[in-house]
């Protein structure tokens, strides 16, 4: 078992038993569900909107080379720079070198999961640069020295009291648990940072090919401040975020907002087209787009798994996931959590180390049902499992067990014999009070379930005798 798998099992078991955590998450997701349901009802036909979004992303992903080059050309035409980063290190180095060359001392960041994926902040901090997260949720987890708990709502695991305590400790000038005053305190502090930072780093919800612009959505307006006040604006984005046309946003923006938070549209929807042009009053002097591959083109090369790149990072599958609600966002130990994380991480970072995440699902399919771009997430989990077995990434004992199982299932007499043995074994263990102990092969089950005494006879021995007359 990989280190990551052991760590996951350990943290998942701890969180599973944490009833306070379960309540906090249930409450937060309940209010998400209420908003989301209201949001979907505003659409004339939500299913048609999903289908449309799937088509747009299909078109983009299946012609990714063409749309990315178109996007690059248009960005360059307006004086922007585009850097193609094959992996995390290349992306980190490009931004770190740029910051060093321009004498940057402070960076303000608008929310970007790719920056988490490439571990950007530690790399900049190592150069003595102060990095400030400006999304309120990100700001809170940064103060706590944690990673985001959820890709859309990074501080979902915290309540008002937790945040009040944190602010009192870290900001000093605030002692209240009134949400408005807490927000005001964060805002006071962040304002100073927006105006003193030399570099702003943002993600991109979409890269619009025909406009050569990036589309950003936030509820706090922090992306606008991060990308227009500092001298340099750096955009970090996965290559799969490109979409063909500006008019695609007419459906993608409301669908993203609805799936993400239940809003009809996110409060601040911004298109950024590059550095300040002659005659313009504001905007950055320099504009850099870092396009990150980091394993994505391998997914692209795999026709069966390609649709995973359709993901628009709305977080709907995470909210729908009963495993996420049980273990929480941190147990995964990965940048992307929940169903999309369990599908994506083993593909981006390797099946041997991360295939356990593809197994950490009951395959209930709630994720696929809510995905606004109709990714069949639980089927991809099945594919990851199949490929993990094919590449011999699974334990020897498990492989032997299934070979034996197959032999047993290929003949009804063998099957009946194994069944008889199992039932006898269960009765003996029970009689000796050994069920649930280390002598019990079904211990993981019997530890959590009251014992069931197996029947003396199976259905096949009974069915002919059953009366059909009652």
């Amino acid at each position, binding site marked *: 078992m990989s280190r990551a798998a052991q760590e996951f099992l350990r943290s998942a078991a701890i969180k599973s038993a944490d009833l306070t955590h*379960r309540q906090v998450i249930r409450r937060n997701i309940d209010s998400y569900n209420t908003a989301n349901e209201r949001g979907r009802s505003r659409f004339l036909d939500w299913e048609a909107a999903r289908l449309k979004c799937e088509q747009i992303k299909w078109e983009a992903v299946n012609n990714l080379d063409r749309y990315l080059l178109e996007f690059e050309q248009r960005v360059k035409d307006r004086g922007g720079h585009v850097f193609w980063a094959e992996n995390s290190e290349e992306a980190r180095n490009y931004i770190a070198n740029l910051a060093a060359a321009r004498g940057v001392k402070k960076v303000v960041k608008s929310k970007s999961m790719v920056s988490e994926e490439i571990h950007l902040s530690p790399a900049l901090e190592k150069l003595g640069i102060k990095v400030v997260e400006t999304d309120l949720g990100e700001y809170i987890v940064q103060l706590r020295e944690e990673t985001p708990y959820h890709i859309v709502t990074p501080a979902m695991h915290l309540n008002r009291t937790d945040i009040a305590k944190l602010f009192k400790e870290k900001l000093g000038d605030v002692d209240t648990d009134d949400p408005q005053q807490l927000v005001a305190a964060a805002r006071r502090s962040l304002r100073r940072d927006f105006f003193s930072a030399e570099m702003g780093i943002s993600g991109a919800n979409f890269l619009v090919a025909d406009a050569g612009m990036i589309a950003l959505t936030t509820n706090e307006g922090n992306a606008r401040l991060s990308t227009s006040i500092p001298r340099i604006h750096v955009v970090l984005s996965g290559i799969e975020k490109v979409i063909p046309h500006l008019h695609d946003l007419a459906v993608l923006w409301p669908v993203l907002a609805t799936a993400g938070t239940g809003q009809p549209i996110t409060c601040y929807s911004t298109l950024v087209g590059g550095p300040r042009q002659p005659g313009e009053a504001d905007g950055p002097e320099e504009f850099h787009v870092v396009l990150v591959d980091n394993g994505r083109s391998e997914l692209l090369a795999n026709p069966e798994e390609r649709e995973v790149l359709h993901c628009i990072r709305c977080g709907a599958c995470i909210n729908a996931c009963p495993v996420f609600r049980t273990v929480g966002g941190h147990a995964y130990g990965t940048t992307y959590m929940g169903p999309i994380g369990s599908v994506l991480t083993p593909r981006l970072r390797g099946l041997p180390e991360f295939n356990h995440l593809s197994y950490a699902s009951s395959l209930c399919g709630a994720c696929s049902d809510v995905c606004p771009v109709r990714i069949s997430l639980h089927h991809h989990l*099945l594919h990851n499992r*199949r490929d993990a077995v094919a590449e011999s990434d699974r334990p020897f004992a498990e492989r032997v067990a299934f070979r034996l199982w197959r032999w047993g299932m290929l003949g009804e007499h063998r099957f009946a014999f194994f069944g008889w043995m199992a039932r006898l074994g269960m009765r003996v263990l029970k009689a000796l009070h050994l069920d649930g102990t280390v002598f019990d092969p079904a211990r993981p089950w019997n530890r959590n379930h009251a014992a069931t005494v197996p029947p003396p006879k199976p259905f096949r021995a009974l069915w002919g005798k059953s*009366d059909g007359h009652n």
Partner: protein
Amino acid sequence: MARVALFIPCFVDQLVPEVGLDMVRVLRRIGCELDFPEEQTCCGQPAFNTGYWEDARPVAERFIQIFRRAEMVVCPSGSCTTMVRKFYPELLAGTAMQKEALALGERVFEFSEFLVKVAKVTDVGATFPHRVAVHDSCHGLRELHLKQESRELLRHVRSLELVEMPYSEDCCGFGGTFAVKFSAISAAMGDAKAGFAETAAAEYVTGTDPSCLLHLDGILRRRNSAVHTIHLAGILAQTGGAAERRPPAASSRGQR
């Protein structure tokens, strides 16, 4: 009435045969002629879901051969029905048997689906004087799109009070090998579900998947809960006759 071949999942055969027997009683009562192909073992889902497609494939092929000539196949599990209808075509893609898998998929029905949609029966003449909540099992709900069928049948059961439990569509946490590999997560999910059944003050949680019910049953008894589990067939089999067996299926054998 139709001639029906019984598809009894491996664990029902070995661990909860009463679910199969109850289904037999109901199907006979509505006039079906039944046949149990005794060569059947397992549909292959445990291996398929764990990624062992090479091991699942011959088991699936054998299953198709056994049910090849069956006019209609009925199964008391939405999950095993899903395996045959939805996953066999993918498992056998590119093999000679894919076509036959697709054809068989159209003739395999989950028990409540068969009653309501094929046999067009909603009142099977059952009596069950208890307060009952339905757990919507994932495969039945999301792969076979069944939700109202079991409720429709329950509404026609005499003296039965049907209640909805909160979050009835949440997964119970069973998930096959998931329950063993990630037993802590699985048990916590089951525990949450058990709590919802208690909130609804149901005497029984019913459903169309004996695997979910087996899991919930073990958890409910572990909690010393007042809620019992019973498969839908177990309710529909009860006619209120004096000579009839007691109700709860698995629970009666289990010990608190």
